């Protein structure tokens, strides 16, 4: 049992080390943003579980805002990653970022409408 635990622990620490060294700066910024979004979403969902779904539309808009932001950020990360350059030859990182901003503008308009 100790060995499997040790195995899991070594895998995780190795993963973390490689992440810190090999990932470019830009992607780490985006990853930090992703973590922030995820935490916000988890806290919102936790509130809903504990206290109840009233008002349901507000909960939905907030939670879905987190989810959608997470998805858009993941898209940005995928498109900006230099290792994926082959798949996104016609989409420059600036273009990806512009798409990201545009999508967010629309997302937040809808969220503000639905939040009541």
């Amino acid at each position, binding site marked *: 049992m100790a060995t499997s635990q040790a195995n899991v622990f070594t895998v995780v620490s190795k993963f973390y080390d490689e992440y810190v060294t090999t990932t470019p*700066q830009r992607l780490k910024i985006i990853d*930090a*943003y992703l973590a*922030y979004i995820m935490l916000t979403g988890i806290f919102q969902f936790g509130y809903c579980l504990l206290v109840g779904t009233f008002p349901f539309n507000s909960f939905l808009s907030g939670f879905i805002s987190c989810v959608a932001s997470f998805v858009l950020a993941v898209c940005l990360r995928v498109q900006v990653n230099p290792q994926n350059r082959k798949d996104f030859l016609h989409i420059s990182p600036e*273009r990806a970022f512009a798409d990201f901003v545009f999508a967010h503008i629309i997302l937040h308009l809808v969220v503000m409408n639905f939040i009541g």
Partner: protein
Amino acid sequence: MTRGTTLLVFFALTVVGQALTPTTVLTGVDQARLKAVFENARPFTDLASAHYSILGLKLLGAQIPNTQDNCNYVKSAVDYQSPESLYYASSATKALGNCQLSSSSAQNTLQAAIKDGVDVPTLFFVVSALINLGLPVNSNEVVNALTEALKTDDSILSGSMALHIAAQLSKDADVKVIFESIEDLVAQADEVGEKYLQFEGDLGLTSFFVVGAYRLAGHQNKAPLIMEDQSVKFANYLLSRKHVQSPKNAYDVVAGLSTLANNKYHIPVCITRQSSMTVSSVQSKVQVRVSNVMSGALGKLTVKADSAERKEDGAVVLSNSALAANPRDNTLYELDFLKTKAGRGFYTIEFSVTADKPDSRLIGLSGAQVEVKVVTTVSVEEVELALEDKDQSTPPRVTKVQYPQKTGSNLAGDHHQNLVMKFLLKDKADNSAMEAHQAFVRLTNKRTKQEVIFVAEADDDHLYKFELDIGASAKEHFNSLSGLYAMDLVVGDALIQNPFAWNVADLQLKFPEDSATSEEKPNLYQPREEIQHMFREPEKRPPATVSTTFTALVLLPVLILLGLWIKLGVNIANFPLSLSAISFHIGLGSILVLYYLFFVQLNMFDTLKYLAILGTLTFLAGNRLLGSIANKRKQLLRSRLR
């Protein structure tokens, strides 16, 4: 050719339509009511209702009250320039008697109206007014104008008006064509249910036609080509409308029926029952009135009852009996029905009438039917009450009761017994057993006054038997309430003169106790308890501390993000202070501010409007900015490659 076929059809239908007679009659009560309609038209509001009211009263043979006031009204309301107004006014003044219109000014208008291209209604008003005022009429001129006008106008109203016009011209005027048009007009009438004949469902039109047709026939001394049963059907239609309320409609009814009561060709004979429908030993005579449609006498007649048929089994109880004339009222005739020794039942008596002095005008002389019912008294005999055990272990005790007494002591029954009651109903007239329409046994709880009603059924010998299983019926009928019950026998029928409810006995019933249900059933007919309206309560909110805590918790990750970014060393220093960069960031910020305002105050349309402006600016700035960044990156790449 058409005349030949018409005659053939005429004869055919005459044979078939023999049995048609009017369904009812304009009774004295009806005539009084119509008289009241005419009288209530005063004070008059217009010339037409004055005309109808005055003429109507005259037709009913009633006194016209306040003739001087009426005359003054007519003289003031008439319009000497309008033929229609002159028609109404002149007929009214003629009916009133000593009332004169200014005939010279009338004459000018009327004579001038007969010109080329005049239409039928105007011609009708003009000719009628001239005749009413006693002024001369050029019959040939009128006939020519009428024929010309009828060529383009073939409505039934104009056709009827032509009849009235022709009836007022001199006797030597050539109105043969108009007379023959009666037949064509009748062909356009609609028949309803083989009983009524009318034009377009219009009372006024039908009445106007009937009056015109018989008037012209009298004028020409020729029978109108209206068949007898058609005449009767017209009479039926007019009689069916006798409950009208306005002066014009009342006049139409009275005028049409007066014509059918008094003309030279067709007078429908009406037979209506005057006595009560019930014939019993107390009142054994059936009395009928034989009259014309206005309840007027028809002279000396011989009235016979051809047959009386019982409805239940079609038995014919009399044939060919003469009725006795009532000496005081020459329209009433009597028949002593019980002389026929008919038993109880519903009977249809059919009559036929012949005039002592032969009168070819009378129609509908046979086939009139009148319904009566013969009632009888009933007696109830052989009444037996018994309480028998369900398991038949002991022989039942039978109690005999005699109507109208009651059993000496109360009967007691409980749930393992059956209550059996037998009785026989007898018709006292011929001492035969009979069945009644209603034979019920009613049990009433003496304390709570609740009733249970059961039906007693008769077997083939007319012996009634009523059986009650006390145990089985406890829950369903009695609510398992034990106690003293009054037992009544209720007998009734349309043909029984003495229906009764007879308290036969009092029963002490005992039901099994365990199945007792709640005593008081809620009374359905009392007001229910009031429902207080509850306004929608607001949803339960969590306490403020919980909300605040979670708000802080949700905002916490922002700080974590900022911390992480600082740790990563996010590059703020490289911020190009160019216009596009600043305006791009300001644009994004302003969009977020706009969204906050949207949440707080604005509506979607305004937001979209501002968003379009801000979005365009931000887009342009962002485009420039990102383009410059891309260029810089490309240049860097190229320089690296070199």
